[in-house]
Protein backbone atom coordinates (compact mmCIF):
# COMPACT_ATOMS: atom_id res chain seq x y z
CA UNK A 1 0.00 0.00 0.00
CA UNK A 2 2.88 2.34 0.82
CA UNK A 3 4.15 2.53 -2.76
CA UNK A 4 0.66 3.24 -4.03
CA UNK A 5 0.15 6.04 -1.53
CA UNK A 6 3.41 7.52 -2.71
CA UNK A 7 2.36 7.68 -6.37
CA UNK A 8 -0.91 9.29 -5.46
CA UNK A 9 0.79 11.94 -3.32
CA UNK A 10 -0.09 14.62 -5.89
CA UNK A 11 -3.72 14.15 -5.05
CA UNK A 12 -3.57 12.73 -1.51
CA UNK A 13 -5.45 15.60 0.09
CA UNK A 14 -8.18 15.54 -2.51
CA UNK A 15 -8.43 11.73 -2.31
CA UNK A 16 -9.00 12.15 1.42
CA UNK A 17 -11.84 14.53 0.62
CA UNK A 18 -13.29 12.00 -1.84
CA UNK A 19 -13.24 9.40 0.94
CA UNK A 20 -15.03 11.71 3.36
CA UNK A 21 -17.63 12.69 0.79
CA UNK A 22 -18.24 9.03 -0.04
CA UNK A 23 -18.90 8.34 3.63
CA UNK A 24 -21.32 11.26 3.81
CA UNK A 25 -23.06 10.42 0.57
CA UNK A 26 -23.57 6.77 1.48
CA UNK A 27 -24.98 7.55 4.92
CA UNK A 28 -28.48 6.66 3.78
CA UNK A 29 -31.80 6.45 5.64
CA UNK A 30 -32.51 2.75 5.32
CA UNK A 31 -30.76 1.08 8.28
CA UNK A 32 -29.73 -2.05 6.36
CA UNK A 33 -28.50 -0.19 3.30
CA UNK A 34 -26.64 2.21 5.59
CA UNK A 35 -24.86 -0.74 7.18
CA UNK A 36 -24.05 -2.54 3.95
CA UNK A 37 -22.78 0.61 2.24
CA UNK A 38 -20.53 1.46 5.17
CA UNK A 39 -19.36 -2.16 5.37
CA UNK A 40 -18.21 -1.91 1.77
CA UNK A 41 -16.63 1.49 2.24
CA UNK A 42 -14.74 0.36 5.32
CA UNK A 43 -13.47 -2.72 3.50
CA UNK A 44 -10.87 -0.37 2.10
CA UNK A 45 -9.87 -0.81 -1.48
CA UNK A 46 -7.16 0.90 -3.40
CA UNK A 47 -9.28 3.89 -4.50
CA UNK A 48 -7.33 3.81 -7.70
CA UNK A 49 -10.21 4.94 -9.85
CA UNK A 50 -10.74 8.31 -8.17
CA UNK A 51 -6.95 8.62 -8.14
CA UNK A 52 -6.81 8.23 -11.93
CA UNK A 53 -9.57 10.78 -12.41
CA UNK A 54 -7.89 13.39 -10.23
CA UNK A 55 -4.42 12.83 -11.66
CA UNK A 56 -5.79 13.12 -15.19
CA UNK A 57 -7.47 16.38 -14.30
CA UNK A 58 -4.20 17.82 -13.00
CA UNK A 59 -2.85 18.32 -16.52
CA UNK A 60 -5.55 20.80 -17.44
CA UNK A 61 -8.02 23.14 -15.78
CA UNK A 62 -8.11 21.26 -12.45
CA UNK A 63 -11.31 22.00 -10.58
CA UNK A 64 -11.78 19.65 -7.64
CA UNK A 65 -15.41 20.60 -7.11
CA UNK A 66 -16.19 19.49 -10.66
CA UNK A 67 -14.07 16.35 -10.48
CA UNK A 68 -15.38 15.21 -7.09
CA UNK A 69 -18.78 13.85 -8.25
CA UNK A 70 -17.15 12.06 -11.18
CA UNK A 71 -14.49 10.48 -8.95
CA UNK A 72 -17.12 9.44 -6.41
CA UNK A 73 -19.47 8.00 -9.03
CA UNK A 74 -16.70 5.93 -10.60
CA UNK A 75 -15.64 4.50 -7.24
CA UNK A 76 -19.24 3.69 -6.34
CA UNK A 77 -19.77 1.94 -9.68
CA UNK A 78 -16.62 -0.07 -9.00
CA UNK A 79 -17.90 -1.00 -5.51
CA UNK A 80 -21.26 -2.06 -6.97
CA UNK A 81 -19.61 -4.31 -9.53
CA UNK A 82 -17.45 -5.95 -6.87
CA UNK A 83 -20.49 -6.74 -4.73
CA UNK A 84 -22.25 -8.32 -7.68
CA UNK A 85 -19.10 -10.17 -8.77
CA UNK A 86 -18.98 -11.80 -5.36
CA UNK A 87 -22.54 -13.03 -5.79
CA UNK A 88 -21.75 -14.33 -9.26
CA UNK A 89 -18.59 -16.11 -8.08
CA UNK A 90 -20.09 -17.16 -4.72
CA UNK A 91 -16.95 -15.70 -3.13
CA UNK A 92 -16.67 -15.90 0.61
CA UNK A 93 -13.86 -13.43 1.24
CA UNK A 94 -12.54 -10.23 -0.29
CA UNK A 95 -9.68 -8.16 1.05
CA UNK A 96 -9.43 -10.57 3.95
CA UNK A 97 -13.01 -10.04 5.12
CA UNK A 98 -16.27 -11.89 4.50
CA UNK A 99 -17.93 -10.66 1.32
CA UNK A 100 -21.27 -8.91 1.61
CA UNK A 101 -23.00 -12.00 0.19
CA UNK A 102 -21.30 -14.22 2.76
CA UNK A 103 -22.29 -11.88 5.57
CA UNK A 104 -25.79 -10.82 4.44
CA UNK A 105 -26.86 -13.18 1.67
CA UNK A 106 -27.46 -12.74 -2.04
CA UNK A 107 -30.71 -10.76 -1.87
CA UNK A 108 -29.21 -7.98 0.20
CA UNK A 109 -26.01 -7.99 -1.86
CA UNK A 110 -27.79 -7.64 -5.17
CA UNK A 111 -30.08 -4.93 -3.83
CA UNK A 112 -27.12 -3.08 -2.32
CA UNK A 113 -25.26 -3.28 -5.63
CA UNK A 114 -28.29 -1.90 -7.48
CA UNK A 115 -28.74 0.82 -4.91
CA UNK A 116 -25.09 1.81 -5.25
CA UNK A 117 -25.40 1.83 -9.02
CA UNK A 118 -28.32 4.23 -8.70
CA UNK A 119 -26.39 6.39 -6.22
CA UNK A 120 -23.48 6.59 -8.65
CA UNK A 121 -25.81 7.69 -11.43
CA UNK A 122 -27.38 10.21 -9.06
CA UNK A 123 -23.93 11.75 -8.66
CA UNK A 124 -23.28 11.80 -12.39
CA UNK A 125 -26.68 13.22 -13.26
CA UNK A 126 -26.07 16.07 -10.81
CA UNK A 127 -23.22 17.30 -13.02
CA UNK A 128 -25.78 17.79 -15.78
CA UNK A 129 -23.36 16.92 -18.56
CA UNK A 130 -25.01 14.55 -21.00
CA UNK A 131 -21.68 13.62 -22.64
CA UNK A 132 -20.22 12.46 -19.32
CA UNK A 133 -23.36 10.45 -18.62
CA UNK A 134 -23.29 8.88 -22.08
CA UNK A 135 -19.67 7.82 -21.70
CA UNK A 136 -20.46 6.17 -18.38
CA UNK A 137 -23.57 4.46 -19.74
CA UNK A 138 -21.66 3.03 -22.71
CA UNK A 139 -19.03 1.58 -20.40
CA UNK A 140 -21.68 0.09 -18.07
CA UNK A 141 -23.26 -1.74 -20.99
CA UNK A 142 -19.91 -3.05 -22.21
CA UNK A 143 -18.93 -4.14 -18.68
CA UNK A 144 -22.14 -6.16 -18.57
CA UNK A 145 -21.36 -7.75 -21.93
CA UNK A 146 -17.87 -8.69 -20.79
CA UNK A 147 -19.08 -10.31 -17.58
CA UNK A 148 -21.79 -12.23 -19.41
CA UNK A 149 -19.26 -13.47 -21.95
CA UNK A 150 -16.98 -14.58 -19.12
CA UNK A 151 -19.69 -16.82 -17.70
CA UNK A 152 -20.76 -18.01 -21.15
CA UNK A 153 -17.25 -19.08 -21.98
CA UNK A 154 -16.32 -20.63 -18.65
CA UNK A 155 -14.60 -24.04 -18.84
CA UNK A 156 -14.06 -23.46 -22.57
CA UNK A 157 -10.43 -24.48 -23.01
CA UNK A 158 -10.34 -23.50 -26.68
CA UNK A 159 -10.31 -19.76 -26.02
CA UNK A 160 -7.59 -17.63 -27.54
CA UNK A 161 -5.89 -14.36 -26.67
CA UNK A 162 -8.39 -12.32 -28.70
CA UNK A 163 -11.36 -13.72 -26.81
CA UNK A 164 -9.57 -13.16 -23.51
CA UNK A 165 -8.85 -9.59 -24.51
CA UNK A 166 -12.54 -9.03 -25.39
CA UNK A 167 -13.49 -10.01 -21.86
CA UNK A 168 -10.85 -8.17 -19.85
CA UNK A 169 -11.24 -5.02 -21.90
CA UNK A 170 -14.87 -4.88 -20.82
CA UNK A 171 -14.39 -6.30 -17.36
CA UNK A 172 -11.64 -3.91 -16.25
CA UNK A 173 -9.97 -1.74 -18.86
CA UNK A 174 -12.93 0.31 -20.04
CA UNK A 175 -13.72 1.60 -16.54
CA UNK A 176 -10.11 2.59 -15.78
CA UNK A 177 -9.89 4.19 -19.22
CA UNK A 178 -13.09 6.06 -18.44
CA UNK A 179 -11.69 7.32 -15.11
CA UNK A 180 -8.84 8.98 -16.98
CA UNK A 181 -11.03 10.12 -19.86
CA UNK A 182 -13.63 11.80 -17.64
CA UNK A 183 -10.93 13.41 -15.51
CA UNK A 184 -9.59 15.00 -18.68
CA UNK A 185 -12.99 15.83 -20.16
CA UNK A 186 -14.27 17.58 -17.05
CA UNK A 187 -11.00 19.55 -16.89
CA UNK A 188 -11.45 20.84 -20.44
CA UNK A 189 -8.72 18.88 -22.17
CA UNK A 190 -8.74 18.85 -25.97
CA UNK A 191 -9.60 15.76 -28.04
CA UNK A 192 -6.03 14.53 -28.44
CA UNK A 193 -5.28 14.95 -24.75
CA UNK A 194 -8.45 13.09 -23.81
CA UNK A 195 -7.44 10.30 -26.17
CA UNK A 196 -3.94 10.05 -24.67
CA UNK A 197 -5.24 9.70 -21.13
CA UNK A 198 -8.06 7.39 -22.14
CA UNK A 199 -5.59 5.12 -23.96
CA UNK A 200 -3.27 5.22 -20.96
CA UNK A 201 -6.10 4.13 -18.65
CA UNK A 202 -7.26 1.49 -21.08
CA UNK A 203 -3.80 -0.07 -21.44
CA UNK A 204 -3.22 0.12 -17.73
CA UNK A 205 -6.56 -1.61 -17.16
CA UNK A 206 -5.59 -4.46 -19.47
CA UNK A 207 -2.25 -4.79 -17.69
CA UNK A 208 -3.98 -4.57 -14.31
CA UNK A 209 -6.33 -7.44 -15.15
CA UNK A 210 -3.57 -9.65 -16.53
CA UNK A 211 -1.60 -9.06 -13.32
CA UNK A 212 -4.73 -9.92 -11.33
CA UNK A 213 -5.00 -13.15 -13.29
CA UNK A 214 -1.32 -13.93 -12.71
CA UNK A 215 -1.68 -13.25 -8.98
CA UNK A 216 -4.58 -15.67 -8.81
CA UNK A 217 -1.98 -18.34 -9.58
CA UNK A 218 1.19 -17.02 -7.98
CA UNK A 219 0.26 -14.83 -5.01
CA UNK A 220 0.40 -15.47 -1.30
CA UNK A 221 -3.25 -15.80 -0.37
CA UNK A 222 -2.67 -13.95 2.91
CA UNK A 223 -1.31 -10.92 1.09
CA UNK A 224 -3.95 -11.18 -1.65
CA UNK A 225 -6.79 -11.34 0.92
CA UNK A 226 -8.55 -14.26 -0.77
CA UNK A 227 -7.71 -17.87 -1.71
CA UNK A 228 -5.69 -18.33 -4.88
CA UNK A 229 -6.83 -20.54 -7.76
CA UNK A 230 -10.31 -18.97 -7.85
CA UNK A 231 -10.27 -18.64 -11.64
CA UNK A 232 -9.26 -22.28 -12.04
CA UNK A 233 -12.11 -23.40 -9.78
CA UNK A 234 -14.64 -21.30 -11.67
CA UNK A 235 -13.41 -22.26 -15.12
CA UNK A 236 -12.42 -18.72 -16.07
CA UNK A 237 -9.72 -18.97 -18.72
CA UNK A 238 -7.04 -16.42 -18.00
CA UNK A 239 -3.95 -15.53 -20.01
CA UNK A 240 -1.49 -17.75 -18.08
CA UNK A 241 -3.88 -20.66 -18.67
CA UNK A 242 -4.31 -19.84 -22.36
CA UNK A 243 -0.51 -19.84 -22.79
CA UNK A 244 -0.12 -23.02 -20.75
CA UNK A 245 -2.75 -24.71 -22.92
CA UNK A 246 -0.89 -23.63 -26.01
CA UNK A 247 2.76 -24.19 -25.13
CA UNK A 248 3.06 -26.66 -22.26
CA UNK A 249 4.29 -30.22 -22.90
CA UNK A 250 1.61 -31.18 -20.36
CA UNK A 251 -1.14 -29.49 -22.33
CA UNK A 252 -3.47 -32.48 -22.50
CA UNK A 253 -3.43 -32.84 -18.70
CA UNK A 254 -3.89 -29.07 -18.24
CA UNK A 255 -6.78 -29.21 -20.69
CA UNK A 256 -8.39 -32.01 -18.77
CA UNK A 257 -7.96 -30.21 -15.44
CA UNK A 258 -9.20 -26.81 -16.59
CA UNK A 259 -12.18 -28.28 -18.41
CA UNK A 260 -13.34 -30.24 -15.36
CA UNK A 261 -16.20 -28.57 -13.47
CA UNK A 262 -15.90 -29.87 -9.94
CA UNK A 263 -12.22 -30.02 -9.17
CA UNK A 264 -10.69 -31.33 -5.98
CA UNK A 265 -8.27 -29.06 -4.15
CA UNK A 266 -5.51 -31.45 -5.25
CA UNK A 267 -6.49 -30.90 -8.90
CA UNK A 268 -6.51 -27.12 -8.43
CA UNK A 269 -3.00 -27.34 -6.95
CA UNK A 270 -1.86 -29.57 -9.80
CA UNK A 271 -3.24 -27.10 -12.36
CA UNK A 272 -1.42 -24.25 -10.61
CA UNK A 273 1.81 -26.23 -10.63
CA UNK A 274 1.54 -27.11 -14.33
CA UNK A 275 0.64 -23.55 -15.36
CA UNK A 276 3.63 -22.19 -13.46
CA UNK A 277 5.86 -24.84 -15.03
CA UNK A 278 4.60 -24.08 -18.56
CA UNK A 279 6.11 -20.61 -18.74
CA UNK A 280 2.62 -19.11 -19.08
CA UNK A 281 3.29 -16.69 -16.23
CA UNK A 282 6.43 -15.26 -17.85
CA UNK A 283 4.72 -14.93 -21.24
CA UNK A 284 1.80 -13.15 -19.58
CA UNK A 285 4.20 -10.78 -17.83
CA UNK A 286 5.65 -9.83 -21.22
CA UNK A 287 2.18 -8.85 -22.39
CA UNK A 288 1.77 -6.78 -19.21
CA UNK A 289 4.99 -4.93 -20.03
CA UNK A 290 3.85 -4.32 -23.61
CA UNK A 291 0.61 -2.74 -22.45
CA UNK A 292 2.35 -0.66 -19.81
CA UNK A 293 4.78 0.70 -22.41
CA UNK A 294 1.95 1.34 -24.87
CA UNK A 295 0.01 3.17 -22.18
CA UNK A 296 2.77 5.52 -21.13
CA UNK A 297 4.21 6.08 -24.61
CA UNK A 298 2.01 9.06 -25.46
CA UNK A 299 2.09 10.63 -22.01
CA UNK A 300 5.19 12.57 -23.07
CA UNK A 301 2.95 14.78 -25.19
CA UNK A 302 1.34 16.05 -21.99
CA UNK A 303 2.86 18.80 -19.82
CA UNK A 304 5.82 17.67 -17.73
CA UNK A 305 4.17 18.08 -14.33
CA UNK A 306 4.43 15.81 -11.25
CA UNK A 307 1.20 14.05 -12.28
CA UNK A 308 2.86 12.72 -15.40
CA UNK A 309 5.58 11.13 -13.34
CA UNK A 310 2.91 9.79 -10.97
CA UNK A 311 0.99 8.16 -13.82
CA UNK A 312 4.16 6.50 -15.06
CA UNK A 313 5.03 5.27 -11.57
CA UNK A 314 1.47 4.05 -11.15
CA UNK A 315 1.81 2.05 -14.33
CA UNK A 316 5.02 0.45 -13.05
CA UNK A 317 3.33 -0.23 -9.72
CA UNK A 318 0.44 -1.99 -11.47
CA UNK A 319 2.88 -4.21 -13.32
CA UNK A 320 4.88 -5.09 -10.23
CA UNK A 321 2.22 -5.31 -7.55
CA UNK A 322 1.86 -8.42 -5.43
CA UNK A 323 -1.71 -7.85 -4.13
Amino acid at each position, binding site marked *: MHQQKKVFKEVTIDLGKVEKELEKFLRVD*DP*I*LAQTCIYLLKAGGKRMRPGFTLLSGKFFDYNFEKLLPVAMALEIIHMA*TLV*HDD*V*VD*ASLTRRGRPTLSAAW*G*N*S*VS*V*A*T*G*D*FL*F*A*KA*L*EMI*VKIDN*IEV*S*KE*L*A*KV*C*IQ*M*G*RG*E*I*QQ*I*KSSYDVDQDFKQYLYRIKRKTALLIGLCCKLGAMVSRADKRQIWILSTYGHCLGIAFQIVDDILDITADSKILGKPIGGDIRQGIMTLPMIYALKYSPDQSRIRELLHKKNKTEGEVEEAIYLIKKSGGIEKSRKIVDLYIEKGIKNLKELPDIPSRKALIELARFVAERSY
Partner: protein
Amino acid sequence: MALVNCIESELNEVKSQIAKETQFKSSSLEELLEYEMNGLDRHLFPAIVLTIGKITEDNREVNISLASIFQYVFLAHSIHRLVDKEDVKASTRQYSVLIGDFLFGQTFYKICDESLYKYAWEFVKVIETINEGVIMRWRLKDKTMSAKDYSIIISKERAALTRLAGRLAAKVAGLKEPYQQRIEDFCYSIGMAWAAWEENIYTSIVHEYLINAKRYLDELKDSLPIRPLQEFFYFFCQGINQDIKGEELLLNIK
Protein backbone atom coordinates in the same frame (compact mmCIF):
# COMPACT_ATOMS: atom_id res chain seq x y z
CA MET B 1 -55.20 -12.11 -23.20
CA ALA B 2 -56.26 -9.32 -25.50
CA LEU B 3 -53.63 -6.70 -26.15
CA VAL B 4 -54.39 -3.04 -26.33
CA ASN B 5 -55.27 -2.72 -30.01
CA CYS B 6 -54.59 0.96 -30.44
CA ILE B 7 -50.89 0.54 -29.57
CA GLU B 8 -50.16 -2.68 -31.43
CA SER B 9 -47.67 -1.27 -33.89
CA GLU B 10 -45.80 0.75 -31.24
CA LEU B 11 -45.70 -2.25 -28.95
CA ASN B 12 -44.14 -4.30 -31.71
CA GLU B 13 -41.51 -1.64 -32.17
CA VAL B 14 -40.71 -1.71 -28.47
CA LYS B 15 -40.38 -5.49 -28.62
CA SER B 16 -38.05 -5.45 -31.59
CA GLN B 17 -36.00 -2.62 -30.09
CA ILE B 18 -35.54 -4.61 -26.88
CA ALA B 19 -34.76 -7.84 -28.75
CA LYS B 20 -32.09 -6.02 -30.78
CA GLU B 21 -30.54 -4.31 -27.79
CA THR B 22 -30.39 -7.43 -25.64
CA GLN B 23 -28.45 -9.63 -28.04
CA PHE B 24 -25.29 -11.02 -26.45
CA LYS B 25 -22.69 -12.31 -28.91
CA SER B 26 -24.99 -14.72 -30.76
CA SER B 27 -27.24 -15.44 -27.77
CA SER B 28 -30.45 -13.75 -26.80
CA LEU B 29 -31.56 -12.97 -23.27
CA GLU B 30 -34.00 -15.90 -23.33
CA GLU B 31 -31.27 -18.32 -24.39
CA LEU B 32 -29.08 -17.36 -21.45
CA LEU B 33 -31.68 -17.25 -18.73
CA GLU B 34 -34.88 -19.15 -18.10
CA TYR B 35 -37.27 -16.50 -16.94
CA GLU B 36 -41.00 -17.01 -17.17
CA MET B 37 -43.11 -13.97 -17.93
CA ASN B 38 -46.85 -13.62 -18.20
CA GLY B 39 -48.64 -11.17 -20.47
CA LEU B 40 -48.55 -8.38 -17.91
CA ASP B 41 -44.82 -8.85 -17.30
CA ARG B 42 -44.21 -8.57 -21.03
CA HIS B 43 -46.48 -5.71 -21.89
CA LEU B 44 -47.74 -3.71 -18.94
CA PHE B 45 -45.00 -1.10 -18.69
CA PRO B 46 -44.77 -0.41 -22.41
CA ALA B 47 -48.56 -0.39 -22.55
CA ILE B 48 -48.82 2.26 -19.83
CA VAL B 49 -46.49 4.60 -21.68
CA LEU B 50 -47.88 3.96 -25.14
CA THR B 51 -51.55 4.27 -24.24
CA ILE B 52 -50.94 7.54 -22.46
CA GLY B 53 -49.03 8.68 -25.53
CA LYS B 54 -52.05 7.80 -27.65
CA ILE B 55 -54.15 10.40 -25.83
CA THR B 56 -52.40 13.18 -27.71
CA GLU B 57 -50.61 11.14 -30.43
CA ASP B 58 -47.51 13.31 -29.90
CA ASN B 59 -43.84 12.24 -29.73
CA ARG B 60 -44.23 8.70 -31.05
CA GLU B 61 -40.48 7.93 -31.14
CA VAL B 62 -39.84 9.32 -27.67
CA ASN B 63 -42.72 7.25 -26.36
CA ILE B 64 -41.28 4.09 -27.84
CA SER B 65 -37.92 4.79 -26.18
CA LEU B 66 -39.58 5.63 -22.89
CA ALA B 67 -41.64 2.43 -23.04
CA SER B 68 -38.46 0.38 -23.58
CA ILE B 69 -36.72 2.12 -20.69
CA PHE B 70 -39.50 1.28 -18.24
CA GLN B 71 -39.54 -2.29 -19.45
CA TYR B 72 -35.76 -2.48 -18.92
CA VAL B 73 -36.01 -1.23 -15.34
CA PHE B 74 -38.84 -3.64 -14.60
CA LEU B 75 -37.01 -6.56 -16.22
CA ALA B 76 -33.67 -5.76 -14.56
CA HIS B 77 -35.28 -5.65 -11.17
CA SER B 78 -37.39 -8.79 -11.71
CA ILE B 79 -34.43 -10.74 -13.08
CA HIS B 80 -32.27 -9.68 -10.15
CA ARG B 81 -34.90 -11.01 -7.80
CA LEU B 82 -34.31 -14.52 -9.12
CA VAL B 83 -31.38 -14.73 -6.70
CA ASP B 84 -33.85 -14.60 -3.81
CA LYS B 85 -35.15 -18.06 -4.58
CA GLU B 86 -33.85 -20.94 -2.53
CA ASP B 87 -31.88 -23.65 -4.36
CA VAL B 88 -31.33 -21.41 -7.35
CA LYS B 89 -29.01 -23.00 -9.93
CA ALA B 90 -25.52 -21.51 -10.09
CA SER B 91 -25.93 -20.50 -13.72
CA THR B 92 -29.29 -18.84 -13.00
CA ARG B 93 -27.75 -16.94 -10.11
CA GLN B 94 -24.87 -15.77 -12.27
CA TYR B 95 -26.87 -14.78 -15.31
CA SER B 96 -29.60 -13.12 -13.31
CA VAL B 97 -27.08 -10.80 -11.65
CA LEU B 98 -25.21 -10.03 -14.85
CA ILE B 99 -28.17 -9.65 -17.17
CA GLY B 100 -29.92 -7.45 -14.63
CA ASP B 101 -26.83 -5.24 -14.45
CA PHE B 102 -26.62 -5.10 -18.22
CA LEU B 103 -30.27 -4.01 -18.40
CA PHE B 104 -29.66 -1.24 -15.88
CA GLY B 105 -26.76 -0.10 -18.06
CA GLN B 106 -29.02 -0.20 -21.10
CA THR B 107 -31.62 1.81 -19.18
CA PHE B 108 -29.16 4.55 -18.41
CA TYR B 109 -27.85 4.62 -21.97
CA LYS B 110 -31.33 5.16 -23.36
CA ILE B 111 -32.03 7.86 -20.79
CA CYS B 112 -29.00 9.71 -22.13
CA ASP B 113 -31.02 10.55 -25.22
CA GLU B 114 -31.41 14.32 -25.66
CA SER B 115 -35.16 14.24 -25.23
CA LEU B 116 -35.19 12.05 -22.12
CA TYR B 117 -32.12 13.12 -20.18
CA LYS B 118 -34.11 15.70 -18.27
CA TYR B 119 -35.88 12.79 -16.56
CA ALA B 120 -32.68 10.95 -15.58
CA TRP B 121 -32.87 12.09 -11.97
CA GLU B 122 -36.35 10.61 -11.56
CA PHE B 123 -35.22 7.25 -12.94
CA VAL B 124 -32.23 7.15 -10.63
CA LYS B 125 -34.39 7.92 -7.61
CA VAL B 126 -36.95 5.27 -8.52
CA ILE B 127 -34.23 2.61 -8.79
CA GLU B 128 -33.12 3.59 -5.28
CA THR B 129 -36.71 3.35 -4.05
CA ILE B 130 -37.21 -0.09 -5.61
CA ASN B 131 -34.17 -1.42 -3.77
CA GLU B 132 -35.26 0.13 -0.50
CA GLY B 133 -38.41 -1.93 -0.97
CA VAL B 134 -36.40 -5.08 -1.58
CA ILE B 135 -34.41 -4.49 1.57
CA MET B 136 -37.54 -3.78 3.60
CA ARG B 137 -39.04 -7.06 2.39
CA TRP B 138 -35.85 -8.86 3.41
CA ARG B 139 -35.92 -7.23 6.83
CA LEU B 140 -39.46 -8.47 7.45
CA LYS B 141 -39.04 -11.87 5.84
CA ASP B 142 -39.30 -13.91 9.03
CA LYS B 143 -42.07 -11.83 10.56
CA THR B 144 -45.79 -11.64 9.98
CA MET B 145 -46.18 -8.79 7.59
CA SER B 146 -49.01 -6.35 8.27
CA ALA B 147 -51.09 -5.04 5.38
CA LYS B 148 -49.57 -1.63 6.04
CA ASP B 149 -45.98 -2.87 5.80
CA TYR B 150 -46.83 -4.97 2.80
CA SER B 151 -48.37 -1.96 1.08
CA ILE B 152 -45.22 0.07 1.71
CA ILE B 153 -43.10 -2.69 0.23
CA ILE B 154 -45.07 -3.12 -2.98
CA SER B 155 -45.46 0.61 -3.26
CA LYS B 156 -41.67 0.95 -3.33
CA GLU B 157 -40.92 -2.16 -5.37
CA ARG B 158 -43.56 -1.79 -8.06
CA ALA B 159 -46.05 1.06 -7.78
CA ALA B 160 -43.33 3.72 -7.60
CA LEU B 161 -42.28 2.62 -11.07
CA THR B 162 -45.78 2.44 -12.58
CA ARG B 163 -46.45 5.89 -11.09
CA LEU B 164 -43.32 7.29 -12.69
CA ALA B 165 -44.27 5.67 -16.00
CA GLY B 166 -47.61 7.46 -15.82
CA ARG B 167 -46.11 10.79 -14.88
CA LEU B 168 -43.39 10.83 -17.52
CA ALA B 169 -45.64 9.50 -20.27
CA ALA B 170 -48.16 12.23 -19.43
CA LYS B 171 -45.40 14.85 -19.51
CA VAL B 172 -44.10 13.61 -22.85
CA ALA B 173 -47.65 13.65 -24.16
CA GLY B 174 -47.85 17.29 -23.18
CA LEU B 175 -50.80 16.89 -20.81
CA LYS B 176 -51.53 19.63 -18.30
CA GLU B 177 -50.46 19.26 -14.65
CA PRO B 178 -53.87 18.25 -13.15
CA TYR B 179 -54.24 15.52 -15.77
CA GLN B 180 -50.66 14.37 -15.18
CA GLN B 181 -51.51 14.01 -11.50
CA ARG B 182 -54.63 11.94 -12.15
CA ILE B 183 -52.83 9.69 -14.61
CA GLU B 184 -50.02 9.26 -12.12
CA ASP B 185 -52.55 8.23 -9.45
CA PHE B 186 -54.20 5.84 -11.88
CA CYS B 187 -50.86 4.20 -12.71
CA TYR B 188 -49.86 3.98 -9.06
CA SER B 189 -53.11 2.12 -8.36
CA ILE B 190 -52.43 -0.24 -11.24
CA GLY B 191 -48.96 -0.98 -9.81
CA MET B 192 -50.35 -1.68 -6.34
CA ALA B 193 -53.13 -3.93 -7.65
CA TRP B 194 -50.73 -5.77 -9.95
CA ALA B 195 -48.13 -6.50 -7.28
CA ALA B 196 -50.74 -7.51 -4.70
CA TRP B 197 -52.44 -9.80 -7.23
CA GLU B 198 -49.14 -11.51 -8.05
CA GLU B 199 -48.41 -12.50 -4.49
CA ASN B 200 -52.00 -13.07 -3.45
CA ILE B 201 -51.33 -12.17 0.18
CA TYR B 202 -53.83 -9.37 0.67
CA THR B 203 -56.60 -9.62 -1.94
CA SER B 204 -58.29 -6.62 -0.35
CA ILE B 205 -55.42 -4.49 -1.67
CA VAL B 206 -56.14 -5.66 -5.22
CA HIS B 207 -59.77 -4.64 -4.98
CA GLU B 208 -59.06 -1.39 -3.20
CA TYR B 209 -56.65 -0.20 -5.85
CA LEU B 210 -58.72 -1.43 -8.78
CA ILE B 211 -61.60 0.67 -7.53
CA ASN B 212 -59.24 3.63 -7.10
CA ALA B 213 -57.94 3.17 -10.63
CA LYS B 214 -61.45 3.12 -12.02
CA ARG B 215 -62.32 6.26 -10.07
CA TYR B 216 -59.32 8.13 -11.49
CA LEU B 217 -60.31 7.11 -14.99
CA ASP B 218 -63.84 8.33 -14.41
CA GLU B 219 -62.50 11.67 -13.25
CA LEU B 220 -60.62 12.04 -16.52
CA LYS B 221 -63.20 10.86 -19.00
CA ASP B 222 -65.03 14.16 -19.47
CA SER B 223 -61.86 16.16 -20.04
CA LEU B 224 -59.59 13.87 -22.07
CA PRO B 225 -60.01 11.34 -24.88
CA ILE B 226 -59.09 8.44 -22.60
CA ARG B 227 -60.29 5.57 -24.74
CA PRO B 228 -56.71 4.18 -24.98
CA LEU B 229 -56.42 4.20 -21.18
CA GLN B 230 -59.76 2.46 -20.86
CA GLU B 231 -58.55 -0.20 -23.26
CA PHE B 232 -55.41 -0.50 -21.18
CA PHE B 233 -57.46 -0.91 -18.02
CA TYR B 234 -59.49 -3.62 -19.69
CA PHE B 235 -56.27 -5.37 -20.71
CA PHE B 236 -54.99 -5.13 -17.14
CA CYS B 237 -58.16 -6.48 -15.55
CA GLN B 238 -58.13 -9.40 -17.95
CA GLY B 239 -54.48 -9.98 -17.12
CA ILE B 240 -55.16 -10.36 -13.45
CA ASN B 241 -58.23 -12.54 -14.12
CA GLN B 242 -60.44 -10.23 -12.19
CA ASP B 243 -63.61 -11.77 -10.88
CA ILE B 244 -67.11 -10.33 -10.98
CA LYS B 245 -66.02 -7.08 -9.44
CA GLY B 246 -63.52 -6.60 -12.22
CA GLU B 247 -66.10 -7.51 -14.83
CA GLU B 248 -68.43 -4.94 -13.38
CA LEU B 249 -65.78 -2.33 -13.69
CA LEU B 250 -65.26 -3.32 -17.28
CA LEU B 251 -68.88 -3.24 -18.24
CA ASN B 252 -68.78 0.49 -17.82
CA ILE B 253 -65.79 0.74 -20.09
CA LYS B 254 -66.84 -1.44 -22.99
